[in-house]
């Protein structure tokens, strides 16, 4: 395994230190228990947005800390949910009486650890709300599984709920827009290669030279099917159509579209994919109101991409356009 890794034990901490080295004006690092938080506390009472999850999905979540987005993020070990102590400490550090919103991706471990933290905080009279993202349409039989996984829509929930919190919205308002955003988005991803968890040192799954996995999860969870390599355009269609159908998009609708890289896919390939996504949506009569193309929610060194579509309306677009200043997203400032 050839990697830019000094030691497995300090891997996540060193990455957190790197985020702060790059953006000392935006982010600070608390080592024990581990969390990243805004370098400067917001002025005035504000709902505190706290997210977190296993590491390996960068820039999610630490890269989205800053004005207009998250107040704190709790990085777990690679692909392992953070522990309750982290969310408890992070929430206490950044809340200032306006309440706390936990943004949690739908994974068994994340849900349980955030739940335990919420119990601890509520025990001390802190108002904690939770929004769970579960947008991965690759999971079809959600009755007999742990449910749809939380993936790309998490970026939009953090951005849009962050905008409402930043302008002084109440805990009720922030929770409501977070849930509405979460429900308005769907995603699907695919892998050209497996990722390798550093502590394990070998690929999580095997894909043959000419095989791809459609519907992959961000930890390498298998998706709907393993198939032979097809063209970029065909791959995009295999991802986009289930998302469009599941959202029930109709002619005249508009969306915020994200073509996201899994970690090892060059941007030039993501643009090739996005080009065809635009064609597919145009063919369906759906307008792309805003687009993001790049690495926003990754899976270590996996090669592949995912597509997220968020059904847009005037309110969501206005909140999406609101100023944001974080390591990974910045506009309007």
């Amino acid at each position, binding site marked *: 395994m050839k990697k830019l890794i000094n030691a497995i034990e300090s891997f996540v901490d060193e990455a957190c230190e790197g985020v702060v080295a790059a953006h000392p004006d935006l982010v600070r690092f608390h080592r024990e*228990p581990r969390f990243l938080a805004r370098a400067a506390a917001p002025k005035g009472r504000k709902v505190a947005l706290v997210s977190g999850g*296993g590491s390996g999905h960068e820039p999610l979540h630490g890269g989205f800390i800053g004005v207009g987005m998250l107040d704190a993020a709790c990085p*777990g*070990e*690679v*692909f*392992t*949910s*953070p*522990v*309750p*102590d982290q969310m408890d400490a992070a929430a206490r550090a950044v809340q200032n009486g306006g309440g706390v919103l936990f943004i949690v991706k739908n*994974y*068994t*471990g994340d849900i*349980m*650890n955030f*739940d*335990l933290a919420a119990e601890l905080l509520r025990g001390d009279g802190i108002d904690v709300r939770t929004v769970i993202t579960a947008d991965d349409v690759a*999971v079809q*039989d959600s009755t*007999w*599984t*742990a449910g749809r*996984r939380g993936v790309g829509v998490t970026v939009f929930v953090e951005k849009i709920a962050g905008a409402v919190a930043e302008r002084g919205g109440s805990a009720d308002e922030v929770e409501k827009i977070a849930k509405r955003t979460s429900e308005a988005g769907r995603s699907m991803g695919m892998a050209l290669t497996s990722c390798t*968890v550093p*502590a*394990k040192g070998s690929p*999580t*799954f095997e894909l043959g030279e000419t095989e791809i996995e459609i519907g992959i*999860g961000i*930890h*390498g*969870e*298998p*998706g709907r099917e393993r198939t032979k390599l097809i063209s970029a355009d065909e791959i995009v269609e295999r991802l986009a159509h289930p998302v469009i159908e599941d959202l029930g998009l109709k002619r005249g609708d508009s969306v915020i579209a994200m073509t996201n890289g899994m970690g090892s896919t060059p941007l030039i390939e993501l643009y090739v994919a996005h080009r065809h996504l635009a064609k597919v949506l145009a063919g369906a009569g759906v307008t792309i109101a805003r687009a993001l193309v790049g690495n926003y929610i990754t899976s270590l060194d996996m090669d592949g991409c995912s597509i997220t579509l968020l059904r847009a309306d005037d309110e969501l677009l206005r909140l999406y356009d609101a100023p944001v200043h974080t390591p990974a997203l910045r506009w309007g400032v």
Partner: protein
Amino acid sequence: MGRLGTRVTAVDTRRFVERFAELIEQNADTLTELDAAIGDADHGINMRRGVRAVGERLAEEQTTPGAVLKTVATTLISKVGGASGPLYGTAFLRAAAAAGTKESLEDADLVALFAAALEGVRQRGGAQAGDKTMVDAFEPAVEALETALAQGQGRGAALEAAREAAHAGSDATIDLVARKGRASYLGERARGHRDPGSLSTALLFDAAAETLSDNGS
């Protein structure tokens, strides 16, 4: 009150936990390999980090079985992460509550302790027997322990029965389709693979059988 050797003390409880830690260390790679097949390849890594931290915190000042179990619980909750941290943490927390402040435990206390731990796992994870989780090893083990003691078998024999039931339960997960956790996304493809949590639970009952029997192990 029976002979001192027939009751479970804080020292026995500590030995039980230390043996569990050793077994996790020895089997960490296997647990991770099993998890790589149907999960996210971290079960052995996370459990090993947890039991190492437990080893550092076990100390003489924990003078009751309940105090030892509570130390294990809070350490696992704050060190393991994933799903196994809250699940094992809750199991030990409920076991600690069941043990209360008693200086030592008799057979009935031991049954109540393991039953409370199982109930905690069921509640935290929402899994039932047959979902291909640690419950598939935990539940038959607790049932075997209860049954054997009710039939008048000694504690050693009952814990041996529990260990065998846990391993049989773990073996049975190989043929199951998962309904909880990351393995549930595999559907039919999960069949043919052992659930890693069921194996770590079987190791827990191995440790119990080796350290908590009343015949001077």
